[in-house]
């Protein structure tokens, strides 16, 4: 059953319990959360396809470890939004702080504004679409999954990257260790198109993006690469 929850009178603990209870029947439930006022750990550990709209700014770890749920933040999000997400979808209408989508294994994170540093750090299979720009050290040690940045990327993009795919439309301040530009082939354009479409991000054309990935030079230690570390 759909419901509203007002954090001006309720607590994070009760909200999360109600969200989990709403999910146990795996019904298509919609929940509005009012007055989040930067609270931490909202809508974390969700396990079913509940739709949660949080009307305001949120603090740390919003939508952490999400499974299946569709969570929308109508405002800005603090550090590590959708950290370790497994599946589902998290949309932030404003900007996000650092570590957005950290170590996320699956699902889709959409940031309509800009992201601070280390967006997609240790990414493990999820997809991230940022309409604006991302800060320095984004996709640091990212292992798999894709990150689409419609704006610019800060310094040291993709440092110590593994197999994640990075697409940037604007400028890249600098590339991190072992990250190189690669050819944007048709399959990559198709991937960008699909991610833009499912994110609802318009006004960007897949062919405008550049692709970055791992040079794979540091996969096995070689003393002649010691300067790279």
């Amino acid at each position: 059953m759909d419901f509203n929850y007002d954090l001006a009178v309720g607590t994070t603990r009760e909200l999360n319990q109600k969200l989990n209870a709403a999910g146990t029947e795996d019904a298509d439930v919609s929940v509005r959360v009012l007055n989040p006022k930067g609270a931490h750990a909202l809508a974390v550990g969700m396990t079913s396809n509940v739709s949660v709209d949080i009307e305001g700014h949120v603090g740390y770890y919003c939508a952490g470890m999400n499974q299946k749920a569709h969570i929308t933040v109508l405002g800005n999000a603090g550090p590590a939004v959708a950290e370790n997400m497994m599946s589902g979808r998290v949309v932030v209408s404003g900007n996000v702080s650092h570590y957005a989508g950290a170590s996320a294994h699956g699902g889709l994170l959409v940031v309509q504004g800009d992201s601070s540093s280390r967006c997609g750090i240790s990414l493990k299979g999820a997809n991230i679409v940022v309409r604006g720009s991302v800060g320095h050290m984004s996709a640091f040690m990212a292992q798999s999954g894709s990150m689409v940045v419609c704006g610019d990327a800060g310094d040291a993009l993709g440092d110590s990257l593994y197999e994640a795919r990075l697409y940037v439309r604007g400028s890249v301040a600098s590339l991190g260790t072992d990250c190189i530009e690669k050819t944007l082939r048709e399959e990559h354009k198709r991937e960008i198109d699909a991610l833009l479409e499912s994110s609802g991000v318009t006004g960007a054309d897949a062919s405008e993006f550049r692709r970055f990935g791992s040079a794979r030079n540091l996969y096995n230690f070689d003393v002649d690469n010691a300067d790279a570390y």
Partner: protein
Amino acid sequence: MPTKKNSDDKLSRQHELRSRLRESATYPREVIAEIQRAAETGIYDIRGWGAKRKVPNFDDLLFLGASMSRYPLEGYREKCTTSVTLGTRFASKPIELKIPITVAGMSFGALSGPAKEALGRGASAAGTSTTTGDGGMTPEERENSDILVYQLLPSRYGMNPDDLRRADAIEVVVGQGAKPGGGGMLLGQKISERVAGMRDLPEGIDQRSACRHPDWTGPDDLAIKIQELREITNWEKPIYIKIGAARTYYDTALAVKAGADVVVLDGMQGGTAATQDVFIEHVGIPTLPALRQAVEALQELDMHRKVQLVVSGGIRSGADVAKALAMGADAVSVGVAALIALGDNSPQFESDYNELGSSAGFYDDWHEGLDPSGISTQDEELAARFDPVLGGRRLANYLNVLTLETQTLARANGKSHVHNLEPEDLVALTIEASAMAGVPLAGTDWIPGKNNF
């Protein structure tokens, strides 16, 4: 043609010369060998095990026992209980252990699947917990461990909310005694298809996991991170924070501040599957002084026994267990000793160790994945040498011996619960150990640094 007399002369001349050889204290043979190895390979030495250097340790302490002024307990009749509850501060489902000895975190990846299974079997048979590692939770491990602690590590390999909820406790790993400030390392030889799959990595690459968590920095962030973990697990599970022994007084206080139910403190003798030798031997402080500092921090915050303290790093015998408890720990953890109990470094494999240029009792190249005992490997043929049922039995035996020894020492000091052991029961054999452990030098009332001298 050399005559017999000539060759005898030559031999005695050689003996005479050899007896004049003097080994340098600054450049002993192992130092020369390391310089030669470095020059040949161009890479630092990586190895497993923990610090091999001699440091003040529990062997430098003695129990006083009972006499005229203290009553002992009858060894075979009077009860000396050993149970421990961990996680009484915030968790609604604390951990109940029958013995004050747990099995430390070791990864599937570093160890074979059957070895992890054996750790679960042994710990469960002895009524205690075992711990996952960098690489996630395997189903075999969960199935065979009555009480399983799930580690949250910087790499987040295999981290997922289902396993988080399946765990009995959660351990946020900030550091490890063998390498405080160092991340994980698993070299390509051990990144098999299954290990790679669990970690989302390409097969056969050298995996170097991060030394810092990806989504928090410092104790203020960590407090919020712990709030998230508690929300996800319904505030049921104890949350441990594991630290490597460094600035232990402050690190313990900050762990308490960040909201830990349990602090796990790993001294520099603590083991590792693969770390640079220079890191193992030169960073961090020994278990002995670290334990005293942690207890002091807890006492000053009025949190001793409220936030439980688990100490690891060179725990080998019941004497070590009893001394750690007497100094104020609530429980201890064993890692290297558990592997030895399973059969690692067994003389049974001496010829195999010799082929690898080592010997039973010395083998520490666990990172190479060639372990003849089949424990620290991902090679299926080697792993098949190891019987997890027998290994589990051996570990349970070992844990039971540690417990019996601990009880023996507790009774000798007149204690009906092992937690009643106290610093007052201890003296130190050396000035160094006295200063580090904060117990008097035997036969004196002197503790260096106390009472202004």
